[in-house]
């Protein structure tokens, strides 16, 4: 079987436009709290979710909208939920980190790592109630150091759960370079629990689709769980308004905010380790720089990459349809939200 590039591209476009709409609503103050976008993860979400069918389950983390959009969750209740409306997907109780759709067997949690055991539970239930169905857990590379996630890798193997673990490796956990606090290599780590694991370029939807297909089929056949390590960029910082990104967006303002206290610390008494302080300052500076460079120069945009695999006119048509769909959903949500308020 070959990937249906048009459908994958459509899925990715829908995700991207939804994320952009969310960013816009958030910037306008209509969405409250943190807002972790999945911009950059479109290929992973689209490529994996394309293999799911009715009765399959999804356990998601704090970047839960892309897989839900790909899964076909109704956009109007989704946006209504985001704006805290009581006719939202969760009646305004969940919000963007706790999106639940019973109909799609999809849940999310803001506790890093918990999507793994929750997904294991879905997979376990499938063994009894719906053989042949699978559960997919999405999480980040930072979550791969969380105990319950590591336990789940073992549990899935021990119980032969029809589960697929999808690790979205964007190399960062908030402001921490994950490599700097992670021992060994995640692929070997997953394999060491006795499940097949493969690395895939998470900016290439066709590659994700291919690898995910194998993993899902394996799970469906009841053969074993698998682990997918998909590298993908973090194009919008950890969350919207990420102070580190703001250093680049509003360099003057942020430097004025962050700078003076840092300089004060540099000179503060007693002068313990005085000679070393510029070095420490340098570490902070370097983190900021790396974050900035990665964002602006090096990271490929998965949507652009996918676009190249679709005929131009088709792509334009899909773009327009997806954009209109999202715009309609946002207006409908805003409309109903207002009427209700």
């Amino acid at each position, binding site marked *: 079987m070959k990937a249906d590039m048009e459908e994958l591209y459509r899925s990715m476009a829908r995700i991207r436009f939804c994320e952009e709409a969310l960013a816009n609503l958030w910037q306008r103050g209509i969405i409250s709290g943190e807002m972790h976008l999945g911009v950059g993860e479109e290929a992973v979400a689209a490529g994996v979710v394309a293999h799911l069918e009715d009765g399959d389950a999804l356990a998601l983390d704090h970047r839960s909208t892309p897989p839900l959009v790909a899964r076909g969750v109704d956009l109007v209740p989704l946006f209504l939920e985001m704006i805290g409306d009581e006719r939202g997907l969760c009646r305004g109780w969940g919000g963007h980190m706790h999106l639940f759709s019973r109909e799609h067997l999809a849940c999310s949690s803001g506790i890093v790592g918990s999507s793994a055991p929750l997904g294991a539970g879905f997979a*376990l239930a499938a063994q009894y109630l719906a053989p042949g169905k699978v559960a997919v857990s999405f999480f980040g590379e930072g979550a791969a150091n969380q105990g319950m996630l590591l336990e789940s890798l073992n549990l899935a193997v021990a119980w032969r759960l029809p589960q697929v673990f999808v690790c979205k490796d964007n190399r960062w956990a908030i402001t921490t370079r994950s490599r700097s606090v992670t021992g060994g290599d995640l692929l070997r780590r997953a394999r060491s629990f006795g499940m097949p694991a493969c690395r895939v370029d998470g900016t290439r939807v066709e590659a994700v689709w291919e690898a995910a297909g194998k993993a899902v089929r394996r799970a469906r056949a009841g053969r074993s769980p698998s682990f997918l390590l998909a590298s993908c960029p973090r194009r919008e910082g950890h969350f919207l308004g990420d102070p580190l990104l703001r250093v680049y967006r509003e360099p003057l303002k942020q430097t004025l905010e962050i700078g003076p206290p840092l300089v004060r610390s540099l000179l503060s008494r007693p002068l313990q380790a005085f000679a070393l302080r510029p070095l420490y300052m340098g570490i902070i500076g370097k983190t900021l720089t790396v974050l900035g460079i990665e964002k602006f120069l090096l990271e490929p945009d998965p949507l652009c990459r996918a676009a190249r695999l679709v005929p131009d006119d088709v792509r334009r048509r899909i773009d327009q349809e997806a954009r209109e769909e999202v715009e309609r959903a946002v207006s409908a949500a805003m409309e109903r939200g207002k009427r209700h308020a």
Partner: protein
Amino acid sequence: MPKMTFAQAIDYALGEAMARDERVVTFGEDVTMLRRNLFVRFGPRRVRQAPISEAAFLAAGVGAAMAGLRPVVEIMLVDFIAVAFDALLNEASKVRAFSGGGWNVPLVVRAACGGGYGDGGQHEQCLWGLLSAMPGISVAVPSNPADAAGLMLSAIDSDDPVVYLEHKLLSDYWLDYLGGGSRGTVSFDVPREGAEGEVACPPSPVPIGKARLVAEGGDLSLFSLGVGVHRCVEAARSLAERGIASEVIDLRSACPLDTELVTASARKTGRVLVVDEDYIAYGLSGELAAVLAEAGIKADFARVCSEGAIPFSRKLEDEVLPNVRRITEAALRLCEGRP
């Protein structure tokens, strides 16, 4: 009605529920052996051995319950729930709220609790206070075989998470396992009416949140659950000898509380003594005090609870856990209006 031990009653009810409903499964460490009678009946699919990964398999229980199973997850001793606390605090107890009421978690967490056999403070805690501090979870604590069976049935039938605590002093096999009952050289203060008794056949459900009036009396209300109930009954006997008539109420669950029965009794007697094997601070005794105060009941109030970590030494332990002497003394002080 046949006689059963406390432990038999629980597994009897669980077995009946499993026979009745395919969706009821149980898993946890060592269940093949701990529940060997159910294992022989239902096999490894429905009585499933788990690795020592409480955080993962309890959260998996949450997911499985969301997807339609009715899992009874065993966390051997309730003390170990600490390593799996997130599954309760941030997942199980919140799904109904977060989903706007659209999704629920019919999960039972089964664990043994309580002390009195010299195993030290990491294996003898009760923790029903801690567990009741999470909105969205019920906590059932039976004190006798009939309730043990009935509450287990209700827990399994419940559409929301229930923690079911099985006191080790009432459960012969736990005492045998952990207290070393196989030796003829040790003995435990096991309340007989708790450890064995009649159980309806088929077992009849006992609603969670309905307390039981164990003894009537007009001078003093004794509120407790689990083994504490039996200690209260014993204390009430010795109080009766001094002419004090105590009302003993078995709360049966720490959450929800049967505020109706509790307030009625307190109103009647005007004196309340809470006997709680769990820790004194921020626990059952506090919540009961607040419930009474909110209801405008200004009863005399005292509490006999575990004051801190439970010591290993049997001698020290007997002093720390609420015992009949401490209960009786506190009751007398209360009745004499002494502080």
